[in-house]
């Protein structure tokens, strides 16, 4: 129906019962779509929780998987949790300062043309599939040198960088220019204005962006498959060696024929899921809060 016909029909109240029925049907479909989306979320969370809950115990994070076929006794995934901690922490150390600097450059220094080009590059980087980044880091670091947790961290940092940079840019843009001008007018050099007047205003936004990026990175499997997956069962902390990680452990256990492995996969999945959900919801809550605070301080 073109908008012209629509207007005519509306003005003359033509076929009103039929149009009302159609409206009601469409509204019902939209309600249904929302119910389906909510249902899917509940279904996934509930089935992971139901299967993972019974296996959730302290052994999971304190004991390592036993090696060999005749292994008995309680087994855990301590090596995977330690590895994820190391890999994600190092990735954050790489991505956080770089991302903030990129945002500072784009918002405070860059000419408009450069800003546009770099923003496009960041968006493109954000759209590169995680598995492709894994293959890239494999070619960059792993070929010839072997796998390492550092290579895995670099791969995760590539994924985190655009997220941190974009969220920092968003809050930098909210900092009122009167604040910069006031500082500059006091004779404070531009670099000090940026570092000690502008950036402190954006801490909330940076924390938010980092939280969301960490939540995303901690759950990524694909970048680690080719960079930090060939591991033993011992507990290690050294990032120069390949370290097991929670997502890769879930991935491997999920394809194992042993039902005991599935049980541990569900328990690890429950922990990972809860972490991702809380970090993501928490990040969003922080985002609205910090945005509101900057907006009211204006």
């Amino acid at each position: 129906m073109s908008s012209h016909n629509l207007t005519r029909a509306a003005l003359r109240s033509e076929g009103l019962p039929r149009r009302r029925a159609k409206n009601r049907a469409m509204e019902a479909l939209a309600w249904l779509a929302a119910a389906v989306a909510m249902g899917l979320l509940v279904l996934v969370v509930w089935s992971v929780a139901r299967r993972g809950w019974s296996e959730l115990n302290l052994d999971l994070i304190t004991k390592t998987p036993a090696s060999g076929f005749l292994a008995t006794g309680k087994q855990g995934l301590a090596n995977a949790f330690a590895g994820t901690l190391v890999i994600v922490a190092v990735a954050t150390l790489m991505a956080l300062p770089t991302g903030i600097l990129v945002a500072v450059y784009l918002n405070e220094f860059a000419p408009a043309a450069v800003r546009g080009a770099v923003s496009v590059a960041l968006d493109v980087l954000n759209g590169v599939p995680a598995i492709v980044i894994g293959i890239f880091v494999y070619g960059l670091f792993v070929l010839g040198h072997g796998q390492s947790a550092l290579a895995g961290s670099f791969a995760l940092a590539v994924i985190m960088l655009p997220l941190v940079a974009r969220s920092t840019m968003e809050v930098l843009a909210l900092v009122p220019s009167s604040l910069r001008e006031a500082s500059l007018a006091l004779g404070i050099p531009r670099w000090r204005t940026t570092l000690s007047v502008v950036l402190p205003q954006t801490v909330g936004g940076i924390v938010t962006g980092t939280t969301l990026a960490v939540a995303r990175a901690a759950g990524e499997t694909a970048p680690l498959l080719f960079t930090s997956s060939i591991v033993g069962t011992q507990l290690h902390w050294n990032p120069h060696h390949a370290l097991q990680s929670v997502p890769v452990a879930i991935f491997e256990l999920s394809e194992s024929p042993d039902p005991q492995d599935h049980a541990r996969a569900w328990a690890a999945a429950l922990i990972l899921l809860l972490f991702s959900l809380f970090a993501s919801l928490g990040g969003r809550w922080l985002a609205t809060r910090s945005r509101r605070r900057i907006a009211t301080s204006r």
Partner: protein
Amino acid sequence: MSAAGITPDATRRPFAGRRVRFGDLALQGVAGAAAAAATGLVGLIAWKLIEGAWPSITKFGVHFVTRVAWNPVIGKEAFGAASFLFGTAVTSLIALALAAPLAIGVALFLTELAPRALRAPVTALVETLAAIPSVVIGLWGIYVLGPILRDHVEPSLHSALGFIPLFGPPSSSGSSIFTAIVVLTIMILPIVASITRELFLGVPREQKEGALALGTTRWEMVRGVMFPYARGGIAAALILGLGRAVGEAIAVTQVIGGGVFIHWNLFDTGDTLASKIAASYQGAATNLEVASLVYLALILLVFSLLANLSAQWVVRRVGRRQGIGLNRGGAG
């Protein structure tokens, strides 16, 4: 990227009519280097993939994309991407077709229908759906979704619509292209829904109320005012969703089952570009096989670049006309 233009030009040029300070130069230099490095990463990724795929590119050339083969046995080595391209196209396009109406429905619910008290929580929950790690969705796909589809959905679809080649006999394992499609639908639904919601929120209130004041029903207002207004943005959101579906490796490789053949039966196993790469992470035997896997990744990269740039182009074109800002939330 939104309101970066509020800094006046005068404060943007630090050195205009002033002596150059070392600190200013240093900060600008370091920050500029970081920005250059981030931009250079895209080029470095492309270069490394071309370099890694080079043995396969020189051996198979462009015929790689039209050949159905994956034989790593030394002496009989033959590699081709055609079956994976086919699998990628089938899974992601059908997933997009399923996710698009759902996502638009969710966005309409969140902007027009939901009681005020429900809007914020349901919006947060929809975005939470995007935060579920793909390996968790994959695990759920293997042991919960797969069996449900195999035992209940696939047999009934097969018996009712079996004359259509798409709905052939179900595979016994529960791994199937159809399972992968459902998993991908779940993964792209929140992305498309949250972008579409923002677009709908941007529709001017006067236009919506104007239509309603003329006596249109709510649905007629949606069709006559909101859809035309948000059309370009929704197209961009769908392109981004497609890019996400094409690039998803882990969850798909967990549920799709594998195999190097082209067939139309959705209930049989298959492979996509991304799932093939993920499935081979420990097994690549020869240099040529590794190079061919990198070739697959290169095809994925080219596709993701095209998808992303075209989405940005659509947004920019539409945005200039209507002042829409398109903010990609969550996982991209």
